[in-house]
């Protein structure tokens, strides 16, 4: 089946950019999503608070690195 790359059903990248720059970014994104679902019943707020803190701590750090730091902090605080 041919991918619709131009029409209204085209994937996000045709109307923007690729979502991830590297496979590890997709991995850590999905990992956080899994934890939010399985451990917090879909409530994203605990993770969001850690993401806010991680970004504020080092504003120039690349986004997905802050994301990883946030997930680690959430795990340290509530799971590990």
């Amino acid at each position: 089946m041919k991918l619709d790359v131009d029409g209204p059903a085209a994937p996000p990248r045709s109307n923007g950019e690729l979502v991830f720059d590297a496979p590890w970014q997709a991995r850590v994104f999905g990992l956080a999503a899994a934890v939010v679902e399985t451990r917090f019943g879909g409530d994203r707020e605990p993770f969001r608070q850690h993401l806010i803190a991680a970004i504020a701590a080092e504003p120039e750090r690349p986004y997905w690195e802050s994301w990883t730091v946030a997930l680690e902090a959430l795990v340290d605080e509530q799971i590990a």
Partner: protein
Amino acid sequence: MAALEDLLTEKGLVPEGFIESFNQAYENDIGPMNGAKVVARAWTDAEYKKRLLENGTSAIAEFGFGGPEGHYMIVVENTPQVHNVVVCTLCSCYPWPVLGLPPRWYKDAPYRARMVREPRALLKEMGCDVADDVDIRVWDSSAEARYLVLPERPSGTDGLTEEELASRVTRDSMIGVARL
């Protein structure tokens, strides 16, 4: 990262195949084309537009769009007098069900800081010239609310079908950093 994944998997928090299917949804199925369908419907159906502006979450759910980052959706309408633009000053909150995942610049410090401080200048830099007599309203995503901009319908589109209209709607116009 691998150690973190091992730990979480060991604790049973990462169901097999979850990451693959979750990510695949955002890479292939969920993106700005969802929001474009919502916008095109609002342009062609006055009753739908009314519902959308009154309760964004439920009107968007009529298309089956919902889920993470979409539990409390507010739709803000651009008019000849008002231009709306969305930001998340603290992190990267974004209406995933209708726009997919945010672009890189949306998550970067300059956008998050400057869109609040000097929206008109930043919009201009991004190629979106808003006339001086048009008010700019900046919506900062909060703990719950996620915003979607309803752009103005472009002139000269009277004869187009809803599907054709949807193809004219861009992601950036629904964030509010572009006009159509």
